[in-house]
């Protein structure tokens, strides 16, 4: 299999009044063709920052993004100028946002909004663009595309809007789709419909997908591999089955244990004490960033920052418990 997205040492800095903070520090991961990579963690751990930085959606006066390299389909895009980046944003790599209402323009008709990337990137005439838009609306499960294409976002329900957003994101047949909590705002039955549909479309186009979510249920059912993030770092990366069978990091274990499960008859849930540290606190601290909340923390954890250890093929974990293992190349 070939890698469609390779990221090495991605960092983001945000300019806040008084000082610069770095909410993500050194993220590296790969996405293969046709693969779904889950990006999980609690809020404030840098999941959304990662995808926003990848899409370069931080304005230059808000922050700065740097990386050793970001290879999209073999091409390093980290050094691209803004003009060059505009050519691939929405074409080779596109994004789905959480809130479908705010990601659509309320004053434009749905059909035009879906066709717009095609008009911009390929210079397709509007008539052809609209035909393509109808086709995609049908592909995302909308029964009467002509009517929907002629309506405005406020005429549609949340689930329909999110279908439109998905259609818009894939109209240029991107190599990589970044989905930031695409179904969080929706009901479970609609969520199931949409995720099944995204899976089908992904298979047809052999697209790589990064699915940001906080729901481990979604990860278990739809992702091939998982990256667990905590406080701006990757703490564990593994194939989904390996992650659920043998979670290596105490944070991953905690996350899995604290979700209530339908099949489970536990009286009280396990929980991780405390909460995610604010960026300003964790970026300067020494030692493991999870040490404060970790049930198995040792003095070493508080003093030294753990590297990623290689537990198995494709399974890495940032925890001193595994220091007998080799250090993974970061």
């Amino acid at each position, binding site marked *: 299999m070939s890698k469609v997205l390779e990221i090495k040492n991605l960092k983001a800095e945000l300019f806040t009044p008084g000082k610069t903070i770095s909410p993500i520090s050194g993220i590296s991961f790969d996405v293969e063709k046709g693969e779904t990579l889950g990006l999980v963690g609690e809020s404030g751990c840098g999941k959304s920052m990662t995808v926003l930085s990848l899409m370069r959606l931080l304005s230059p006066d808000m922050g700065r993004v740097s990386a050793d390299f970001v290879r999209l389909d073999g091409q390093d895009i980290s050094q691209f100028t803004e003009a060059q980046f505009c050519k691939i944003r929405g074409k080779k790599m596109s994004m789905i946002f959480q809130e479908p209402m705010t990601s659509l323009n309320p004053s434009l008709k749905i059909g035009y909004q879906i066709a717009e990337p095609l008009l911009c990137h390929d210079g397709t005439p509007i008539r052809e663009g609209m035909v393509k838009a109808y086709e995609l609306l049908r592909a995302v499960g909308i029964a009467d595309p002509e009517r929907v294409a002629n309506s405005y976002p406020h005429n549609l329900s949340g689930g329909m809007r999110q279908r439109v957003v998905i259609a818009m994101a894939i109209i240029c047949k991107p190599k990589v789709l970044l989905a930031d909590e695409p179904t969080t705002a929706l009901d*479970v039955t609609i969520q*199931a*419909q949409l995720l099944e549909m995204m899976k089908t479309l992904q298979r047809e186009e052999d697209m790589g997908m990064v699915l940001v979510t906080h729901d481990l249920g979604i*990860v278990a059912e739809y992702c091939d591999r998982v990256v667990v993030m905590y406080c701006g770092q990757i703490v564990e990366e593994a194939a989904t089955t390996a992650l659920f069978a043998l979670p290596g990091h105490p944070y991953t274990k905690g996350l899995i244990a*604290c979700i209530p499960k339908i099949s*489970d008859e536990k009286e009280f849930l396990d929980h991780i004490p405390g*909460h995610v540290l604010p960026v300003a606190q964790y970026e300067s601290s020494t030692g493991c960033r999870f040490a404060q909340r970790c049930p198995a923390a040792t003095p070493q954890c508080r003093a030294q920052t753990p590297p990623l250890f290689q537990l198995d093929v494709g399974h890495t974990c940032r925890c001193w418990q595994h220091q007998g293992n080799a250090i993974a190349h970061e």
Partner: protein
Amino acid sequence: MAEILMSIEHIYKTFSVKQGAFQKLSFHAVNDVSLHITQGKVYGLVGESGCGKSTLASTILQLTQPTSGRILYRGMEVDAHTPAAMKAMRKDLQLIFQDPFASIDPKMKIRDVVMEPMRTHKIYKTRQECYQRACELMEICGMSAADLERYPHEFSGGQRQRISIARVLGMDPKLIIADESTAALDVSVQAQILNLFKQLQKDFDLTMIFISHDLNVIKHISDRIIVMYMGSVIELADKEYAYHEPKHPYTQALISAVPNPDPFQEKKRIILSGELPRFSNLPTGCPFHPRCPQCMDICRREKPALRNLRKGQKVACHLYDGHTY
């Protein structure tokens, strides 16, 4: 037989929206709902957004008046027109909101936040007693008495939700309605708050209605499950029945749609087609029939009534006409 705390009989809540200049369109957000709330039980109220869960909750709390139907609290009809009786009842029925950032006044110290309702209802004679109770409540909810002197912005979402719970417990409530109270929280914090609810329910023998769209959460906390669809209760069952033998096709689909955080378990998924109908053009007959995989002729014509299927399970579906267990 446990005491019935509250009976809700044939409640309707009708809203009307303007359609153009002269036309008005009215629809039932709550459509003929009857329930008995038993002392000491936890009820889970589930359904998709817009199905009338929150409207039903605010009708129970008398925050909105039902269009028709009766609400009996401890066997007595609640009369919304006598302020003294209403005030006494309000004290017994408490609500915990979804958003812990919007439900606490940012300009008030936590001590005032927790003590205000106790003062309003004149539960303690002196300020000293009231303060002492506030300290106890904070400790019960996993906070410290020193936190009373701080301001809301110093606390995280989970901590604020604990404060909201402490505030409510000061009233010694008979019924607590938690409206999506953990939806805004991260899973690890959600687990903490759910454990707190469970502990409190045990310690104080609380009666609770837990509203959520998260069936995993509902399963964990409730004894009985109420499933709503387009304003009607379509299934009402004990937890074991609702999750292991759901009868209504909608309940079956809803439970199968929940992502299961266990990649090794086999899944049977029922994917519903279509979306929730709008209240403005509710289908005739069973409101679920356009999405129902097992729709029959009668479903298009007649709305099924909620019937007893067996002890502990009621269902409103024509599939079970004539069935008894």
